[in-house]
């Protein structure tokens, strides 16, 4: 079965963070092996995020974790070339809102797409979707600018 990123890992930053966590864990494991050989006191296990756990579980797919498999996972994550889009909103969305947007984007565009969120209060409302080739602007600001003729007509009537 082909590996797929869990829905929780939806942005390039999260993917990088997960890769970093696993790499840190591998480094810690190797260093502790050396420390054990020389009789040194082992270091504490580094922290990792919930998303890292989800990615590792998806990668192992029920198999027993090994250093080699984790190294393979890091290599795979670093080599991933996933499409990215940037979503701009009037404010940063909370987790639930992010999940809704990511679910919709992955369901309607590409399943493995990565989404990064940016906030711009000047937009007022709506959404801007920026792909590598295009900017889809569905914001209130854009609606107001596009309706400048209406504004001119209203000004004339006043």
């Amino acid at each position: 079965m082909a590996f797929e990123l869990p829905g929780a890992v939806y942005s390039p930053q999260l993917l990088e963070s997960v890769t970093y966590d696993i790499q840190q864990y591998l480094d810690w494991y190797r260093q502790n092996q050396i420390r054990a050989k020389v009789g040194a006191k082992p270091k504490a296990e580094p922290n990792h995020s919930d998303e890292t756990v989800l990615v590792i579980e998806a990668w192992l797919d029920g198999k027993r974790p090994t250093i080699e498999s984790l190294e393979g996972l890091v290599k795979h994550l670093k080599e991933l070339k996933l499409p990215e889009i940037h979503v701009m909103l009037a404010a940063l969305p909370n987790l639930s809102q992010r999940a809704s947007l990511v679910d919709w984007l992955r369901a309607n565009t590409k399943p493995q797409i990565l989404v990064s969120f940016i906030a711009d209060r000047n937009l007022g409302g709506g959404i801007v979707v920026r792909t590598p080739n295009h900017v889809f602007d569905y914001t209130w600001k854009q609606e107001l600018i596009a309706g400048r003729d209406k504004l001119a007509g209203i000004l004339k009537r006043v």
Partner: protein
Amino acid sequence: MEIIVIVGVALMLLVVVVVQSFQLKALRQFKIESVGKPKPVQVSGPTADELEAKLKVAYEAKIGEATQTFGTDLQATSKRLTEQVSRLTTTVIEEELEAYQKTLEEVRKVATQAIDQIHQAVEHQRVELRQGMEAELASEKKQLVDKFDAKMGDVVASYISESLGSGVDLGAQMQFILTSLEAHKDEIRKDLLNGV
């Protein structure tokens, strides 16, 4: 030219009258002188008186005839002269009037041309002025529209930012956002499938 000829004829007739007057006078003088002088030919008194009377009658008849002829000629000449003067006067007046009318017509034509030229110049100037004003107005209008367009984004952004403050409720917008995405789903997907 005809006037000169007529005047010449009149003068000649006058000269003839004067000459005949002198001849008549000389004849009388000769008669007077002949009375005192010795007469080579002896004519009796009654015969002489008769001859003189006949001569006088003949002479007076001639004078009367000449005077009548002269009067008739003079009357005819005067009539002709009057007619000629009248004709000449009429011709001159007609010619002068014609020349005057011609000049007046030329002046009128020149004045009309001048008025037309002035009218054309004024019209041309008016059209140029109008075109210039229209171009200037269009340019100014375009500048204002461009300026308005250029500032429109900033105006809207500032208005939104100042109106909403920091209270942006994204939760209330989610339905609008998802509806917008749903409405443009095809173009976003097409762009991603083609571009990545």
